[in-house]
């Protein structure tokens, strides 16, 4: 009974507050501010050569966040193996119908296998989804100074109005891409 509860997808009213509790947990553990995307900057500072001023800082002072990101990888592995979804899950019929029109079927709750796979990387469509999409995530989050965790959750929790601006722009960008641009890419 308990395990079957854990292996079904968890409802939003459980997971949302658990995600929100990351904020006080990290503050109480060591005055750390929740925010994942800066890890991409720390990786650049630690690994990539060249004297770019933006990456010339003591990334080791922020190394806690790299441990946090490493933990997310391990947590993802645990959830996908020990707590893997057994219960059925579904998507909105309109989305399922729209995606079926592009040859994309809903099988699991994560990534559509037709779009995200290694061979697809060498097609224009796959390149746009994975490589261009990833590039925009990295470029955009640093230009904005944070991501969903750093702005939308930590920034809003701390009542920073620039974070509200950023969050609204994240959503606006997502709406534009999903509704206006994505149909053309899926048609490729």
């Amino acid at each position: 009974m308990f395990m079957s509860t854990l292996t079904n997808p968890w409802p939003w009213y459980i997971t949302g507050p658990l995600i929100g509790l990351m904020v006080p947990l990290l503050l109480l553990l060591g005055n750390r501010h929740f925010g994942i995307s800066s890890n991409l900057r720390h990786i650049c500072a630690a690994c990539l050569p060249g004297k770019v001023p933006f990456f010339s800082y003591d990334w080791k002072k922020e190394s806690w966040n790299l441990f946090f990101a490493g933990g997310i990888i391990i947590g993802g592995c645990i959830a996908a193996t020990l707590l893997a979804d057994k219960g059925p899950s579904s998507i909105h019929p309109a989305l399922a119908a729209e995606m079926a029109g592009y040859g994309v079927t809903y099988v699991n709750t994560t990534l559509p296998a037709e779009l995200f796979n290694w061979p697809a990387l060498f097609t224009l469509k796959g390149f746009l989804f994975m490589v261009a999409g990833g590039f925009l995530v990295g470029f955009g989050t640093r230009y904005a100074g944070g991501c969903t965790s750093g702005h939308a959750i930590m920034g809003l929790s701390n009542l920073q109005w620039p974070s509200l601006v950023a969050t609204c722009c994240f959503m606006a960008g997502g709406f534009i891409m999903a509704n206006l641009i994505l149909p053309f890419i899926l048609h490729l």
Partner: protein
Amino acid sequence: MPLSSNTDFEVQSLDTSTDTNHTAKKAPLWRQLQYLATGIFFGIVLIKSEVISWFRIQEMFRLQSFHMYGVIGSAVITGMIAVAIIKKTGARTIYGEPITFQPKSFNKGQIYGGLLFGFGWALTGACPGPLFAQIGAGFTVSIVTLASAILGTWVYGLLRDKLPK
């Protein structure tokens, strides 16, 4: 880079007022492991909440499901209450260090960068946290997406002074 120009909301050690932040100095490994453990818990929650799902992200941006709004909304409300309590009580870390907040300023990057990240979010179905979780969950091709995100961050760093801000 002068400290006053820190536009990053996520890099506390570049904030001017955190020069006195003791915890920013050498952290012993056992304290780092606490963050590893916190990350493991967060990774599990990300997977089980389905916020790493490309399909849930598409539903959100098509207003077809309340799920993502429920997750993010209740996370923000929980965080707001927690931060308000910490500020009100002047709570310290469990090791007695002060908990500090730095007010952040507006710049156009939050608009332009925010829109660009939104495009990437709808394409990849992942923000940076979920990217790490997808890799852990066995979606190995997300390593390419993550590598491309690191490249995007690096290119931003190169072009930073030429971009509107």
